[in-house]
């Protein structure tokens, strides 16, 4: 989907105009093409009739009820426009919503704390991963789940390095992404992943994004 010569096309949906404009500016400056903006779900639906962006960045909470319109809209958009990657932003992170988003098909979706947009390189990374069909889960979700106090758990068996890699898997990173992040080679990462799965008693899953869901569910149980 990503054509190296063509900038990624982004659409924004958020009722906070100030923030939307700032975000559009940042994304444009970072080399993305902002192809449309919407203030609510109705505008967004109309916008998607006209243009099909590579990635849609939308706020969970929008008019009219200011609850979880963005989350509900993302289910519909995934059904109607399966090629659009969706990056959901939220002022608060709820594990439940992350799982709800991943449940249908974890490919090409992301769920980030809104303040992550303040680091444009982090945001750009997330946008590219979503556009590539990967999944992005906010580190806050992962740290919350990993940091949960537990009585006794196979997690205690993991080495610090394995915990770190588990966290990166839960954030939706691929083996090569993890290798890049940790500055090790992909083979090493693969070995760690296999050991982690066997220690936790998880079935090896095909594909990186299936892995996200399995890991998150494991951590949440």
């Amino acid at each position, binding site marked *: 989907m990503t054509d190296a010569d063509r900038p990624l096309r982004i659409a924004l949906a958020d009722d906070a105009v100030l923030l939307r404009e700032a975000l559009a500016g*940042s994304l444009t400056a970072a080399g993305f093409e902002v192809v449309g903006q919407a203030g609510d779900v109705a505008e967004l639906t109309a916008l998607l009739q006209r243009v099909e962006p590579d990635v849609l960045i939308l706020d969970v*909470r929008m008019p009219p009820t200011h609850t979880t319109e963005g989350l509900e809209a993302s289910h519909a958009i995934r059904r109607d426009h399966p090629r659009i990657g969706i990056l959901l932003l939220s002022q*608060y992170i709820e594990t439940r919503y992350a799982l709800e988003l991943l449940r249908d098909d974890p490919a090409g979706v992301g769920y980030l704390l809104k*303040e992550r947009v*303040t680091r*444009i390189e982090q945001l750009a990374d997330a946008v590219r991963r979503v556009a590539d069909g990967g999944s992005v889960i906010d580190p806050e979700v992962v740290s919350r789940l990993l940091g949960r106090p537990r009585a006794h758990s196979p997690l205690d068996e993991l080495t610090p390095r394995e915990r770190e890699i588990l966290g990166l898997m839960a954030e939706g990173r691929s083996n090569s992404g993890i290798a890049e992040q940790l500055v090790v080679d992909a083979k090493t990462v693969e070995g760690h992943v296999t050991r982690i799965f066997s220690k936790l008693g998880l079935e090896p899953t095909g594909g990186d994004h299936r892995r996200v869901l399995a890991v998150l569910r494991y951590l949440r149980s």
Partner: protein
Amino acid sequence: MADPRAQPRPGDLALLAALGVVLAAVAQFGPFLYASPLRTPLNPVFATAAFIGELLWVAAAMAAYWRDPSGPMWKLLLASRAVSALGAIWVVNTSLTWTVWEATIGLGTVLFAHLVLAFPSGRLVSRYDRWLVIGSYAVLAVARLGFVLVWDPRSGNCFPRCPVNPFLMWPSADLAWLFGPGLSLAIPLLAVLVAIGLARRWLRASPALRRMLLPVALVAPLELGVSAARFLAAMSQDAWQGVGITLSTSPLAFLHAAIPAGFLLGILAARLARGAIADLAVELSRGVPLGGLRDALARALRDPTLALAFPAPGGVGWVDPHGQPIDVPAETTPSRSVARLERDGQPLAALLYDPAIEAEDPGRLGAVSSVASMALENERLAAQVRAQLGEVRASRSRIVEAADAERRRIERDLHDGAQQRLVALAMRLDQARGRTADAGAIIDRATEELLAAIREVRDLAHGLHPPILTERGVAAAVEALAERTTLPVRVSIPPDRLPADVEAAAYFLVAESLTNAAKHAGATAAEVRATLDGGLLHVTVSDDGRGGADASGGTGLVGLVDRLAAIGGTLAVESPPGGGTTLQASIPLGGGAGK
């Protein structure tokens, strides 16, 4: 009390008695004072019995006058005797008296129907009754007037005498038949219509009114049936006339006296029922349970429909003994009488009662209310306290509701305002970073602080009202809360959506308890369990901390108790020193009391 009635005057009563006795005597013995070839020989037994029957009517008229001198009842009763006495003039052998007698035949029957339908107040209440009575008078007037204008007594068989009709204008035997015997065919119809009117009244009557209507309802249709039979017999030939005479001279002739007898008995029974007031006094002196006064008064008044109302605490409106608002009509209506009682010039209570008990026994209400005055005062205070308690509950629940709404509003304001602005500002700083190499470190520092501020505002807003509580309910919100708590927390809450105030109360109970467990109790684990049981949500939060929590001590717990109480919930705290803390709340789903 109800409308002020005119006071009966003993002099007028004596006059009424004298007039009544004279009319009764004329009716029964008059014919014998006049030497007439027409009268039958005096049967002393029959005449005396008939005279006693007449005296019952007079006594009933006197009783009716005594209880309601300005009302129509005693006039109707007296009029019926006057018509009865008028019947005696038939023996006077003059053309004029004979014709007048002819002209007034049937008046007694219609008057009887009128009296029956107007019983016991003398007033015709329903439209059906009014039209029936007016129509009967009108038909009778036309028929008798027409009769005397066309009837020539000398034209036919005028045995035993043939007086001249001084009013005869257009002699016509056919018309005379139509106006006379012909129209008397309407008498059975009248009997049926009156019976229908009585049945309608009976069906609508309150228990008190039925007690009074009973003798009338039993006797009147029978009496009218006998009248009808007599009229039919009178207009028929030969053999049937014998039946008419038999009916006139048999004990059935005294049937009508059952009406005044029933009236008098009703008054007597109502008087005797005053004994219930003495019972009431005894019952009240022993003390009735709070709220039981209405039943005691209803028994003493013999009015099961009685309702009690007390002035509302604010002085506006009324409340029932339970403190609930109740409507008190400004004026007495035909179906409901209102007595407003006062004590020392202050409104004490209002009694909403069946107007029929006034007719049954006008003094009873006054007697009952004076006996019950002190008990009413107690009940008034209790009702007012209950009403105030209800108001306080309602206002407490409104305060919590308003506070919750305010928390939601502030959370949303922070979300839409400060949080978005801070994030936008951080983005601008981020954009600036790449452009000013010198200020990079300062911008990094500022960004760090800004991100810290964003987190603080986020935590503040989330603590005010977590959006997931509104979005996904208490189970999801508590699970999310457990994820963020530094203790292992086991959560078991049914996923059902509940009323918002219940969800908020349960959520903040759990949030406060988990904070206490983690921060103050030194707990290593906690458990949250909730179950739905009928109309109640039971929430239990337990930890293994050091215990010693006290619902009256820590402000957090007091706040929880208040919040729960506002929606009718309760909180039990078990926290022995060193033995962990268990909080158990029960929250009604139907909203708090007094809402």
